């Protein structure tokens, strides 16, 4: 039975933490743990969720959880899984929650190693599109044009110059048993994917877009709305990779206006019409690729 709002576990496994109001990352962690349940061990690297959830003596995970080194989410998950299996314990989930920097930058090598070994772990990247814990610095998942504290928007340079790294397809290229993209704006889709991943043996990867009001410059009650809108305007997409095939889960009939999405966030407010045209073109190129290569 698919998990939904009615059947979701009432127990809280991540509460009492000090995440910012409207934090998309903490919503992803909270919901994923409700789906995975009590027999779960979470590994979180240095980053927002560990910074807000593990301050001795205020420890905020109701089930087993440990902070790994920044680069070591996947490798520590491997050890946790192997250590339990070596003791004959097999009915559990080993899940990692790492941010975009912890996944696509410093943690990519360890993640690649774990997928290569096909370790029985679930790796969830909560992507808030910059190093938010250290104060909004650019990561390789920061989108084009975004203003961060290390990609300032001025007269000469309009924020970040690089495109968002394609983690989903990088992970899929390992021939991973299961990978998916998700958004906290489409929470039922995310829950379904966590539930599905939990039922598959081997390495699983879910990349969930999780807005950060503090870093994106949106209101704290706009997180879910913005996380929906990024999908609706086509700058993010909901898809799965399984058995060597890509599947698109949600196809907007007509994209909503990219400009509306961008301009409500202070990180994009400086963008010119030319900048927005570049973003639109790259969105269209991406969707041409998706329509050609993904099943619907």
């Amino acid at each position: 039975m698919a998990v939904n709002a009615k059947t979701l576990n009432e127990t809280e496994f991540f509460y009492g933490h000090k995440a910012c109001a409207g934090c998309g990352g903490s919503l992803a962690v909270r919901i994923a743990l409700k789906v995975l349940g009590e027999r779960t061990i979470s590994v979180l690297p240095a980053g927002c969720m560990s910074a807000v959830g593990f301050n001795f003596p205020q420890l905020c995970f109701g089930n087993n959880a440990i902070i790994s080194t920044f680069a070591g989410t996947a490798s520590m998950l491997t050890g946790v899984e192997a250590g339990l299996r070596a003791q004959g314990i097999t009915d559990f989930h080993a899940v990692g929650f790492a941010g975009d920097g912890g996944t696509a930058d410093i943690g990519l090598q360890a993640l690649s190693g774990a997928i290569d070994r096909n370790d029985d772990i679930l790796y969830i990247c909560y992507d808030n599109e910059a190093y938010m814990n250290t104060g909004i610095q650019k990561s390789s998942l920061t989108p084009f044009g975004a203003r961060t504290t290390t990609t300032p928007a001025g007269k000469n340079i309009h924020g970040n110059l690089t495109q968002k790294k394609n983690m989903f397809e990088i992970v899929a290229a390992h021939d991973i048993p299961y990978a998916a993209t998700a958004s906290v704006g489409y929470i039922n889709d995310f829950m379904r994917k966590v539930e599905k991943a939990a039922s598959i043996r081997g390495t699983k990867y879910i990349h969930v877009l999780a807005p950060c009001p503090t870093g994106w410059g949106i209101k704290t009650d706009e997180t879910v709305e913005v996380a929906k809108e990024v999908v609706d305007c086509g700058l993010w997409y909901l898809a799965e990779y399984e058995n060597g095939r890509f599947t698109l889960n949600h196809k907007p009939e007509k994209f909503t206006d990219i400009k509306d999405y961008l301009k409500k966030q202070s990180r994009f407010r400086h963008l010119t019409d030319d900048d927005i045209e570049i973003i639109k073109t790259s969105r269209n190129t991406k969707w041409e690729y998706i329509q050609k290569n993904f099943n619907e």
Partner: protein
Amino acid sequence: MAKKFLSGNEAFAYGVRFARPQVISAYPITPQTIVVEKLSEFVENGSLKAEFIHVESEHSALSCAMGASSVGARAFTATSSQGLLYMAECLPYAAGGRFPIVMMNANRSTALPWNIYGDQRDSLSQLDSGWIQAYAENAQEALDLALMSFYIAEHKNVSTPFMANLDGFVLTHTYEVVDVPTQEQADKFLPPFKTENKMSFEEPKNLGFSAGPDNNIIFKYKEHLGLLKAKAVIKEAETHFESIFGRQYTGLTESYRTEDADYLLITLGSISGLVREVVDRLREEGRKVGLLRLRYLRPFPDEEITAAVRKAKAVAVLEKDISFGNEGTVYTNVNSALHKAGINIPSSDYIGGLGGKNISDEEIEQIFTDLAQQRTGVHFIGIGGGQSGS
């Protein structure tokens, strides 16, 4: 027991096998490779039941071992030189987490210049990482140390990771006759790993947390106490070991003809064998010389050193290490112990063997000759280098 002709690496691998580690994670680096190759053979032929994880780096090797230890599994890894430095972030992490992982380090020089041969600058650069550090002299001690390291690291009073050092090539690749015990003997010596410092589904825990300015020092103090308590546990382990295997070890240090020695050389690792020969030869000539071998650098054997040196007229340290811009790290540690004990005799530091350069018996004899002349200072053996570039 059976006699086998084994290299240091192979002997250590046997010791690890007898300790029944549940998770082994390792990445290859010369001259460590043979120990992990041997262990993977043991896993393949079924003589060792362990999860052998082919990690993609040394950082992941130790990160993986921490993950395994955090759920109560006995974990082992091995590395050397650049690999040790690459995983360096994980060393204080494992120590602070009180994960009693055992790691073999094949002592090797660090780049630049590139060099694969033995010196001890790799492990000594990590002396303050919170790990127990032991230095084996020969293949037999390597095997025995492998077995004892788990006992010591996992003891509830210690709960501290253990780095067992073997000199690269000179010890890791040299073949010797080794007494190999039986699994039954090993099982009698080493109980299965039990700890409360783990995540379990019966008692869920949050581990590896943050501790702010108010609490941090408490955790660090307890970590320090864990290392200090290892002193007694090392003795206990060796007594227990002797009762089963019949071989005796002498704690943090090993004294050789020190009782009435006027001139004492302090060193560590495989060079001790040659020093012992020189001591014997000079003793035959009537020269009152002795050797103190440091078997452990952490916990530091300050009491053993001062006891051995108290009656001497001069003391020197011979080490394969230099803390650039100062002196050898072992020398600094030894001098601190002597100073605290109020021992004020000439002391000197001899730095040699860097990048695997041979140290000859003539050079060791010269150190004893210098000692008799009350020479002090820091000296680079074999190149005539003095402390200040003179």
